[in-house]
């Protein structure tokens, strides 16, 4: 799917980082907490923005093709589904092997997110983060053991940081410049 944009389009001048123009940004702000649950959600989103439903849909599909939107879906809250144990596992992995190993870790079932992040020595030596989900801590530990053996000698140390409490969690990702989120 491709939507051509004219380089001299008026929006081009207002394109924000990430290739979003002002209308895209307004759509992001209007949908980040969810689509309206009405028969034609696209028109409901577009109406206050002065565009029709087809344009909203087209722009969102374009953002999805560009990787800005990963998916448009019914997003489950795993905690409410019984995945009560969520362990952020952090690993000190040899930089020479991290690309290959990061991809391998990400492919394991139960890993929902896997990122490389910078070390802050000496207090924070961990450069690979993998989020594990299970019903119990024992489930998460089993998964962490699998990761440990997959990483082998390239891994020097690791920790599992369980969440003891969710203090804030919102679907909101992108705040308007002057917004103060509640």
């Amino acid at each position, binding site marked *: 799917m491709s939507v051509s944009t004219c380089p001299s389009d008026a929006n081009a001048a207002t394109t924000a980082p990430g290739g979003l123009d002002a209308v895209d940004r307004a759509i992001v702000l209007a949908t980040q907490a969810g689509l309206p*649950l009405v028969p*034609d959600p696209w028109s409901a989103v577009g109406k206050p923005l002065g565009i029709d439903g087809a344009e909203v849909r087209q722009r969102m599909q374009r953002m999805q093709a560009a990787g800005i939107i990963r998916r448009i879906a019914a997003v489950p809250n795993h905690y409410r589904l019984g995945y009560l144990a969520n362990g952020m596992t952090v690993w000190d992995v040899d930089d020479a092997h991290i690309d290959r190993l990061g991809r391998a870790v990400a492919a394991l079932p*139960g890993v929902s997110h896997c990122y490389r992040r910078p070390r802050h020595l000496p207090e924070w030596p961990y450069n690979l983060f993998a989020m594990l989900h299970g019903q119990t801590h024992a489930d998460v530990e089993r998964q962490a053991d699998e990761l440990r053996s997959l990483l082998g000698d390239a891994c020097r140390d690791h920790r599992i940081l369980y969440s003891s409490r969710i203090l804030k969690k919102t679907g909101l990702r992108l705040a308007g410049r002057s917004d103060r989120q509640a």
Partner: protein
Amino acid sequence: MAALDLLDRRLIDAYQRGLPICERPYAAMAEQLGVSEAEVVARLQSLQNEQVLSRVGPVFDHARAGASLLAAVAVPEAERDEVAAVINRSAGVNHNYAREHRYNLWFVMTAADEGELEARLDALEAELGKPLLRLPMLEGFHIDLGFPIPWAELEVP
């Protein structure tokens, strides 16, 4: 775990990876599931109200839709909730978890761009009077597509 019937589960299983992107998505889902559009809408609404679904809508790659950063701060346990409240009040904070580690508060700061992100982190760091561990994502190895939910295993006997 929330009590979910077969239709709830079919909705989650079939659409956690993506909705049909057409003019009337809930009608298309209804057709696939053999129920009415009104029923799909009502179910999604109640699953959302019960927080079984976080939302029905787009999942953004926030690294591409603006700027964001995972940060952590180490605070004495006795002050943890007080500090968490300060963090939660800050513009742009969208997740905040207490975790079992010396770095015991972990949150995600978001902003429209890198400059605003840094300004927000600097302001919060000054307000807290404690150094923030700043852990930007350097590379994402995973495209989060959800994962199959083993309903039978989740059943409480």
